[in-house]
C-alpha cells in the first residue's frame, strides 16, 4: 500500500467565503508511481488542480482549509509538515509547471537567473547551478543557451517559455513533476512538441508525472492512468485505454461523447448567390503585415471556417471585413458593393446584416447592463427594426430561441455561467436578424461539454434561419464537425481553401498536413499508433 511514490488519501479541501464554506474537493484519493504518468481529467470547476496545490502547499489558508485526508510522500504526511519543510521539498523533490508560462515567469528578471534560483534557493553553489542550467536549456531545445539565459521572459515565444519552465522545474532532478494544463495556452503544433519533450524527459529521469488537463487528446497522448473528476469528486479511475473505451460513470461517458471531430462532415460547396467576396484584403500595422492579399467568397447560408495558429491573421481578417480595423488594401464586396468604399450612412444600414460573436462573453457583454438592455440595445440603435412596445416580447422570444428563459432578461451577465453568457451574446447578434454572423473563437473558451451544446445551438440557427457563418477557430475537430468550407491561414496568408472533406481527408498543402497531424485524437490507441508511425 505505501510503496507508491506519492499517495493522496481522502483529501477534502474547503474554501471559506462570505457565502459560507464551499467544498472544492471531497474525499479525493489517487496515487502516483515512479516513472508513471497520471492524468487528472476534469472541466473547469471540477477541482482538478486542488490536490496538486495541496501537495505544493500553495493553498492559501484562510480562505482555504484542508480539513481531511493525508498526502503520503516517502512515509511522511505532507499535510502535517511545517512550511519550512514544505519549502525544502518544493522544487527539489516535487516540481511544478503551469498553464500560462508568461504570467508564471517573473517578468522583471532574466530567465537564466530564475532558472538558477531553483538550485540556489536550496543551497547549491551558483556556478554549479549555472552549469546545470546551461545543460538543461540546451536539452529542452532552446538555441544558444548562453544568450538565452540573459533574456527576459517576454522575449521568448509561448512554446519556448514553456520549455524554459520545464528546464527550471527539472534543475534538481525532482522525483515528481506536476504539470498543470501545460499545453492549454499553446498552438497545436507546439503542444505536440512540448508533450513529446515531457515524455522524453520522463523516460530519461524516471520521474513520476502528474498531468492535470481538460483535454482528452492530451490524456490519450501521454497518460498511463487517468483520474476523472467532476464537481470536486473522483468519478472514475483506470488506465487511459480502459477509461476511454469502457467508461463506467455517466459523466465520463458524456465527456467522451462531447469530444468533437467524430461526426459526419458536411458536403460544402454552395450554389447560392455570393454574400461576401473578399478581394486582396490586406492589413498592415506600421510596417508589419498582419494580412496579405486575402481572397475568398462566402455564399448565403454557407458556413466558412477560418483556421490557423496564433498570429496567422485569422481574427484580423474578420475584424478588417467588419471595419473594426481600417483595411490597408483590397475590397470586400457585400452583395456586390464594396464595404471599404462606403460612406458612414450606407455602412450603418448594412451593419445590422452582419453581426459578430466574440471569444470571451465575459468581456463582450457590458457588465453593467441587464440582459434585456444588452439585447434591446440593437433596436435602440437601428430604430425602425422593432417598435419599442414589442421589445419585451421580442427579447423573450430570442432568449427562448437560444435556450434560455424569458425571465432571465432582468439579470446581469455575471449571474450566468460561461456557456449561458455565450448564448446571450448569440441572442444579441440575432436581434438584428443578420444574414452573416462572424464567430471569433466563439466556443474556444468553453468547456468541451458546453462547447458541444453551443455548437448544437449554432447548428440549429443555421438550419432554421439560413444564416451564413464566418467561423474563426484554432480547434480543428470543432471545425471539422461544423463547417461547410475551410480556409487555412498561416502568417497572414491564406494557404489553402477547400470543402471540409477536402481539407480534412485530402489536404494539399504541407502546412495543412502538419496542422492536422499535430492535433490529438481522444482515443489512446489511435494516438499510440500515430506515435509509432
Amino acid at each position, binding site marked *: 500500500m505505501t510503496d507508491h511514490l506519492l499517495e493522496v488519501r481522502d483529501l477534502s*479541501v474547503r*474554501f471559506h*467565503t*462570505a*457565502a459560507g464554506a*464551499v467544498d*472544492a474537493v471531497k474525499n479525493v484519493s489517487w496515487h502516483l508511481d515512479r516513472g508513471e504518468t497520471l492524468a487528472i481529467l476534469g*472541466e*473547469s*470547476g*471540477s*477541482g*482538478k*488542480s*486542488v490536490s496538486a*496545490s495541496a501537495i505544493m502547499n500553495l493553498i492559501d489558508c484562510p*480562505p*482555504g482549509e484542508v480539513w481531511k485526508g493525508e498526502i503520503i510522500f516517502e512515509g511522511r504526511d505532507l499535510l502535517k509538515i511545517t512550511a519550512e519543510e514544505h519549502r525544502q521539498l518544493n522544487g527539489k523533490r516535487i516540481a511544478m509547471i503551469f*498553464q500560462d508560462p508568461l504570467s508564471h515567469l517573473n517578468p522583471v528578471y532574466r530567465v537564466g537567473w530564475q532558472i538558477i534560483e531553483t538550485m540556489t534557493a536550496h543551497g547549491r553553489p551558483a556556478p554549479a547551478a549555472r552549469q546545470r542550467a546551461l545543460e538543461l536549456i540546451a536539452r529542452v531545445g532552446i538555441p544558444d543557451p548562453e544568450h538565452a539565459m540573459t533574456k527576459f521572459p517576454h522575449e521568448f515565444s509561448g512554446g519556448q517559455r514553456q520549455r524554459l519552465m520545464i528546464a527550471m522545474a527539472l534543475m534538481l532532478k525532482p522525483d515528481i513533476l506536476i504539470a498543470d494544463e501545460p499545453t492549454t495556452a499553446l498552438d497545436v503544433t507546439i503542444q505536440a512538441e512540448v508533450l513529446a519533450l515531457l515524455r522524453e524527459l520522463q523516460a530519461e529521469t524516471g520521474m513520476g508525472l502528474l498531468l492535470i488537463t481538460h483535454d482528452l487528446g492530451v490524456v490519450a497522448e501521454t497518460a498511463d492512468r487517468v483520474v476523472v473528476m467532476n464537481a470536486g469528486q473522483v468519478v472514475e479511475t483506470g488506465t487511459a485505454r480502459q477509461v476511454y473505451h469502457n467508461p463506467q460513470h455517466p459523466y465520463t461517458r458524456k465527456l467522451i461523447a462531447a469530444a468533437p471531430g467524430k461526426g459526419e462532415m458536411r458536403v460544402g460547396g454552395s450554389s447560392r448567390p455570393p454574400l461576401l467576396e473578399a478581394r486582396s484584403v490586406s492589413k498592415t500595422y506600421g510596417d508589419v503585415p498582419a494580412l496579405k492579399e486575402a481572397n475568398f467568397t462566402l455564399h448565403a447560408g454557407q458556413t466558412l471556417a477560418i483556421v490557423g495558429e496564433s498570429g496567422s491573421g485569422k481574427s484580423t481578417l474578420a475584424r478588417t471585413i*467588419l471595419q*473594426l480595423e481600417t483595411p490597408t488594401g483590397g475590397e470586400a464586396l457585400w452583395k456586390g458593393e464594396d464595404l471599404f468604399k462606403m460612406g458612414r450612412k450606407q455602412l*450603418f444600414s448594412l*451593419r*445590422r446584416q*452582419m*453581426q*459578430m460573436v*466574440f471569444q*470571451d*462573453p*465575459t*468581456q*463582450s*457583454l*457590458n*457588465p*453593467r447592463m441587464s440582459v434585456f438592455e444588452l439585447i434591446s*440595445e*440593437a433596436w*435602440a*440603435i*437601428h430604430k425602425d427594426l422593432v417598435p419599442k412596445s414589442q421589445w419585451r416580447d421580442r427579447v423573450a422570444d430570442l432568449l427562448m430561441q437560444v435556450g434560455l428563459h424569458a425571465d432571465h432578461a*432582468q*439579470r*446581469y451577465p*455575471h*449571474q*450566468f*455561467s*460561461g*456557456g*449561458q*453568457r455565450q448564448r446571450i*451574446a448569440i441572442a*444579441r447578434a440575432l436581434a*438584428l436578424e443578420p444574414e452573416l454572423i462572424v464567430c471569433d473563437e466563439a466556443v474556444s*473558451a*468553453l*468547456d468541451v461539454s*458546453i462547447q458541444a451544446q453551443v455548437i448544437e445551438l449554432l447548428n440549429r440557427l443555421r438550419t432554421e434561419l439560413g444564416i451564413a457563418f464566418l467561423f474563426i477557430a484554432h480547434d480543428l475537430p470543432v471545425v471539422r464537425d461544423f463547417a461547410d468550407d475551410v480556409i487555412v491561414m498561416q502568417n497572414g496568408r491564406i494557404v489553402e481553401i477547400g470543402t471540409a472533406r477536402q481539407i480534412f481527408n485530402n489536404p494539399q498543402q504541407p502546412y495543412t498536413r502538419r496542422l492536422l497531424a499535430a492535433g490529438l485524437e481522444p482515443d489512446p490507441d489511435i494516438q499510440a499508433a500515430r506515435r509509432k508511425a
Partner: protein
Amino acid sequence: MIETLSNADQASRTSPRLLPAVRMLWRDKFALAAAIFLLVAAGCAIFGHTFLSDAASSQNLRGRNSPPFSVEQGWLFILGADALGRPLLARIIVAARNTLMIAGGAVLCSMAVGAALGLVAGYTSKFVSQVIMRLADVIMSFPSLLLAVIVLYMLPPSVTNLVIVLAITRIPVYLRTTRAEVLEIRERMFVQAAKVMGASHLRIIFRHILPIVAPTLLTIATLDFAFVMLAESSLSFLGIGIQPPDITWGLMVSQGRPYLSTAWWLAFWPGLAIILTTLSLNLLSNWMRVALDPVQRWRLEGTSQNNSAETAND
C-alpha cells in the same frame, strides 16, 4: 476560467440596488462608522447655521478662553470657548457649512469639467488629446497657492471664488484618470460589440464607457474631497482663504494659533474635526473601491458566487 457556479438564490436577487449597498456597508464596521460620521457632519452643515449661528457669534468677554469639559455656561461650552468667549462647539458646527460646501463644490466642479475633458481627450483625435494634456500639465505645474492669491486678489475672497480656485487646481486629477480609463475601455470587447451593432460615438461614450468610469471617479472624488478640505484649510490658515467673520475649520485653527501655549483647545478641536472628516472620507473611499468593483464586491456581499473556490481550481 469562465464557468461560474451561479446559484439560484443569488440569481433571484436582482433589483433594488440600494439595499445591498447598505448591507455591504454594514459588513465593514469602519466604513459604517465613517458614513455615519459624515452624515452627522452633513447634518451640521445643513441645519447648524439655522439654529446655532447666533450662539456662535455672541461674544462673552467674561468667558474668554474658558477651558473645555465644563458645562457651567451650557452644553455649547463643552469644548471650551475662544478668545472672544464664543462657544467652540457651536462655532465648529456652524463652520462645517462653509468647510464642506467649499470642498464639495470644488470637487463637483472639478470632477464635471475634468471628466468631460478626459472623455474628449481619450476618445477623439490625437491632436485634441495632446492639447488637452498640455493644458493639464500647465495647471499641474501652476502652484495652487499662487493661483489662489491671484484670483482672490482680483475677486473678493468669497466662497464661490474659493471654490473656483480649488476646482481649477484639481481638474487634472480627474482628467488624467478619465482619459487613461477611456483609452483602456474603448479597446474592450463590449465596446467593439457595440461598434459592430453600429452604435454612434455618443452612445458608446455615454452608454458603455461612462458607466464603467463612474465608480472610479466617485472613489477618487471621495478621496479628493478630503484633499480639497485640507487645501482650503491651508489657504484659510495662511490668511488668503475665507476672511472673518465667515469661518471655516482651517480659519479657526489659524485663529487659535496665537493662544496655543495658553489655550490649546482653540486650535485643537477644529483640527480634530478636519482629521475626523478626512479620515472618514478615506475610509469610505477604500470601502467604495471594493464595493464598486464587481470582481471584488463578493468580499462584502452576503450571498455571492464562490470566487475563491474558482480561482483555486484554475
